[in-house]
């Protein structure tokens, strides 16, 4: 995505003139005058109203805020608006209309969530894993998912749901 840098719209006395930044999230282009140092997490949640992405730690230690930028799973608490290099996909953009993504289907089938707070980040992290590795082993899953904390301890269900989604994606391709 090409970032555009329009001229300041308004200037407040004593404040840095706010710039408008465009970003594309889930296929929709937004314009925000939030300071460019603002982490993507807070732009999504507080400026754009996309609250499916969660805050857990602010230091990239829990994975609750994981989203995709150009298909790559990133901790949105660590990427500033100004540094954003591509299109953003959040949990709200994973489904295609009413049709859930395969991981969302298997998350439901395996009844993964307990409190659910970390699950947006878990699913986004798992989506990147499956995009890169369509048949991950347990060790692959461990390596990919170790950065995503779940205080309810839903790990075994997450593992099962990822394997199941891998099977359904691969089966779909084969068929």
């Amino acid at each position, binding site marked *: 995505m090409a970032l555009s840098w329009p001229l300041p719209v308004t200037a407040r006395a004593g404040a840095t003139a706010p710039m408008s930044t465009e970003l594309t999230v889930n296929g929709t282009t937004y314009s925000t005058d939030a300071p460019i140092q603002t982490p993507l997490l807070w732009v999504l949640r507080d400026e754009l109203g996309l*609250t499916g992405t969660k805050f857990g730690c602010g230091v990239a*230690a829990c994975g609750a805020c994981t989203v995709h930028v150009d298909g790559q799973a990133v901790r949105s608490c660590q990427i500033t608006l100004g540094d954003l290099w591509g299109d953003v996909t959040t949990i709200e953009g994973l489904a295609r209309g009413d049709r859930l993504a395969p991981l969302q289907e298997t998350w439901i089938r395996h*009844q993964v969530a*307990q*409190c659910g707070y970390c699950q947006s980040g878990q699913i986004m992290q798992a989506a990147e894993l499956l995009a890169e590795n369509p048949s991950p082993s347990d060790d692959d899953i461990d390596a990919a998912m170790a950065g995503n904390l779940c205080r309810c301890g839903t790990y075994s269900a997450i593992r099962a749901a990822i394997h199941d989604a891998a099977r359904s994606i691969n089966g779909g391709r084969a068929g």
Partner: protein
Amino acid sequence: MSLLRKITRRSLLVGAVAITGGAAFGIYQIRRPVTNPLQPAEGATLNPYILIDQGGISIIAPRAEMGQGVHTTLAALVAEELDAEWDSIRVLHGPPAAAYYNAALAHGALPVADYAMADWQRRVTEGLGAATRLLGLQVTGGSTSTVDAFDRMRQAGAGAREALKAVAADRLGVAVDDLRTETGRVIAPDGTELDYRDLAAEAATRPVPRATLRPQSEWKLLGRSLPRTDMRAKATGMAQFSTDIDLPGLKCATVRICPYLGGGMAGFDPAPALAVPGVEHVLDLGDGIAVVARNTWAAMQGAEAAQIDWTPSPLPATTEAMFDRIARAFEDRPNSTMRDDGRPDEVTARIEAEYSVPFLAHTTMEPMGATAWLQDGHLTLWVGNQAPREHLKVAAEAAGLARENVTLHTVFLGGGFGRRVETDVTRQAAQIAAMLPGTPIRLTWSRAEDIGHDFYRPAAIARMRGAVAAGRATLFDARIAAPSVTRQAIARLAGRNIGGPDKGHVEGAFDQPYAIPHYRVAGHLADLDVPIGFWRAVGSSFNGFFHESFIDELAHAAGRDPLAFRLDHVAPESATAAGVLEAVRDLSDWDAPRADGTGRGVAMTWSFGTPTAVVIELQQASRGIRITRAWMACDPGLVLDHAIVRTQMESGLIYGLSAALMGAITFTDGRADQENFPDYDALRMDTTPRIEVAILQNNPHMGGAGEPGTPPAMPALANALFDLTGQRIRSLPLAPQADFIT
């Protein structure tokens, strides 16, 4: 068919009434009914659990959904009798109301071990349960939700079903007994179907028919593993937590409260905070500041930038000094001696040992947060919480409003574990909203604030004496010292101090089903004002470790296999508890030869009505010790949803293992030294063992599921480490003392 059409058309008028408020109706099987908070009009027959409008059937859950699946199981209780269609019901959190009192909380009131309770004692607790109705204790905790709701919510469903049938009978001119119900409809012998939605408003105005509950053999929903009602929302990012509420003109806030616990704020300079782009207000909260900004990040930057002059904490300056203060409690007479069998003072101890555990934080995935909006003198809050009436009361006080001018919506909790009984964040949100009338406030704590201002699991010390003879334990004498969660929490919640023996302080130790001739558990309450609160499994979270570690020491001293040793002592006391030990033995193939470089430990704790045994397996790998396997067996009696019980057991285990391995809050000058997950971590995908769970249903009384998995996990881990290394570690956490992979 024409009759149905006519009725449907007529009912649309009635339906319009139902749409405005929904029709709430049904049965309440207590002599004097409680006020139904869902009923706008006075004097109607009532049921606080069911709302039917043109949108369909909503079931009101009186308890908070914090991950434990309580919405699903409580809704299933109603739906089972109501014949509601499972896939189309909605589940809502109940408003703050006395109707939603938790009678099962009284179960723990008697100074008696659960396993040893006589029938008359159970009846006494049921009487006390009625008293909780007067207190209106609407609390989610103590692993009580299902036990409390089991009869009440089924009766609500059954009464509502019969009321709907009675209306249908009148309309169709058919005898009630000839009608049946199915998936939200009343069905007549000729096949005519009347939708509940069209019967609800009239049914709500009628006296409640008597209804008998269906026998278990006829259950269609209960006893299965149902699709959770919250799952789709949680897989799509649509589930709303405390800070996910979108309101017009919303501003974002955070707080920075004096980190020196018990200290305050002498003054502050807001200028550096106000210089942060996006910051709009810096507010004085008394013991700290709130920063209000266009987004949460700006608020957090502002809060960090503000110059604040803190006043010191009155707490001991070091963690060591805090433990000294706790140990001093041993010098005083015990607060309780709830088990005192035989003559322990006359038996010579063969083993004496001191155990200790640290303070722990809850670290729910969702840091503390709330949304609050003061509009035209009315305050509305959205907050995931475990005690709605308390939160509402505190919010009203903080905003200077009468309680009727406050509305509190309970939303999903991003983890609770006991933390969200506490009202601190709700108080702050109400304060901030009251200072900025008309502006909706989204208050989010930083993780550092969340860890630094927890109500911690208390640190505790146990001093044990024991003896064995002829392969059996002859003496188990425990003295346990810690500050009292019960006393501090009740002082906070009820505003008064209570005396008397503190059962919560010694639960998990005094109430274990072991036959030991000289067996004593004394509790000593320490005078230490670190903020402490309910942490998953509460007293059992430390007493389970003390008790089951020392049992292991006795087994070793007796030269016995630790599982067989336990069974010998447990079987005479409780067949139910012996059953879980046998089950975990079989599940883990305990008696099979062990591979080199592996160690196994076992522990069993009876807590919250459910005996739970755990076996942990460790493997010495080249990089260090790995927790490879875990086997659990529990017996909560009748199981309403197997998958939920199993996942709660796994969850409790992982929570306990995380704490035992690496959980510790330490303090310097009264300030927590830990700030975030890098220094207060938990098990991850790659460090969590493979877990197998056996669920038995031999317990004649229903027990809890959310907490009982936590206490035995900790000693089972330490006992496995002893088996692997020969090293008996008597203090937690283990990771700093052994070569674990974390």
